[in-house]
């Protein structure tokens, strides 16, 4: 481990934690929102769709700033959540929140595409067999959109690993608490001659993401094999 300092290892560990948390916690709402967007026909449809895409459109700094205003300890939601013990400001949880929000549009899109590709005739068949809408979703729709969910998760994970602008704006960069890999890389790049140190971290970052990618491909292929040739 000689070639990475302890602070750098901390950054690696933190990044992993942040990315995993962001991915896992955004999956359920991601699936829900994708479902609503794919199937729902309601007045606020375009609005919700736009809202979800917002983090993609806005410069990350702006997103981070908006997060700060909303989820900061003084922000409307932040102060509310603080009362039940959930604090984002200057915590790794905040970094995860920022990463999750930034990755959300990617996740939702992937899942939504999968949902739209599901043959509603199969869901009808499940309903005639007595499955309620929720059961139909769990037993038919969800397994069929698994490739999309996996794709969404891996996109979100990769994005969360690379997210920087919104994170640093929202929770800044406190070594060991909120210093993720990208923040560390950025810091190195800001000073003359920091390239080689940055490169080491970039390599670590790539390695982790590659592993995640390969794992996701494996899972998707398994899921695909299960549903294959139908």
């Amino acid at each position, binding site marked *: 481990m000689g070639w990475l300092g302890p602070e750098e290892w901390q950054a690696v560990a933190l990044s992993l934690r942040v990315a995993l948390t962001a991915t896992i916690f955004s999956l359920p709402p991601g699936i829900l929102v994708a479902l609503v967007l794919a199937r729902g026909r309601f007045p606020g449809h375009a609005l919700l769709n736009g809202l979800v895409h917002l983090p993609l459109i806005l410069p990350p700094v702006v997103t981070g700033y908006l997060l*700060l205003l909303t989820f900061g300890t003084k*922000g409307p939601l932040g102060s509310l959540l603080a009362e039940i013990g959930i604090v984002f400001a*200057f915590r790794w949880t905040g970094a995860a929140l920022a990463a999750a929000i930034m990755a959300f549009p990617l996740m939702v899109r992937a899942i939504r595409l999968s949902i739209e590709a599901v043959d509603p005739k199969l869901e009808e068949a499940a309903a005639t067999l007595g499955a309620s809408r929720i059961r139909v979703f769990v037993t038919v729709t969800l397994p069929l959109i698994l490739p999309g969910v996996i794709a969404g998760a891996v996109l979100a994970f990769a994005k969360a690993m690379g997210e920087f602008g919104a994170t640093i*704006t929202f929770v*800044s*960069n406190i070594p060991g608490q909120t210093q993720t890999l990208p923040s560390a890389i*950025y*810091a190195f790049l*800001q000073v003359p001659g*920091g390239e080689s140190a940055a490169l080491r971290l970039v390599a670590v970052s790539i390695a982790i993401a590659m592993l995640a990618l390969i794992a996701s491909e494996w899972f998707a292929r398994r899921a695909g094999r299960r549903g294959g040739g139908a």
Partner: protein
Amino acid sequence: FAAASLKNAIEEIVGTFNGETGHNVTVSLAGSSALARQIQSGAPADLFISANVGWMDTLEEDGLIAPGTRADLLANALVLIAADPQAEPVELSPGVDLAGLLGGGHLAMALVDAVPAGIYGKAALEGLGIWQAVAPQVAQSDNVRAALALVATGEAPYGIVYATDAVAEPGVQVVGTFPADSHPPIIYPAAILAGHEGAAAEAFLAYLSGATARASFEAQGFVVLGEE
């Protein structure tokens, strides 16, 4: 090419300069590091105003600036700001109990190893002998403005930013200015780049030191260096 923190002043000056001389100067505003790297990669820039000395040194070593054109253009001061409008002024003398002042809160700064404002801030705190004490509570942002925002939104009770940034933000209170000797001088060096074309660059560099420019810079809180 100019550091992004010069935006307001430099644009005003460019406006008047272009108006007066008929030249057509355009400005590219970005972080000093990004600009420096672009210059290293052959950016078609004529003039570079950096927010710190380090990147200018690097370019000079690489032989990318026209010899003899480098000049220290501006200086800035470092201040301690507070979110609380009622905050007491702080005497920033060696050994001041900044950590105590923060309570459990954070001290917002720019990246202390990377961004000029952060580097200066860290040096200042070291100069005051209190870096070790406050280091665990420092929240570093990628730039001064973000640090300022942290204080402005009340996220961090105190922050260290440039004087120029502090003046324009109504949400914060300047509670102290770091003694100039507690940190290396905060200098914005300017230089004409090697391989520039035309005389406009020289003219503009000269104009930057002129009275009109001085007024603009000072209006933004900068200290203009160099010959009067």
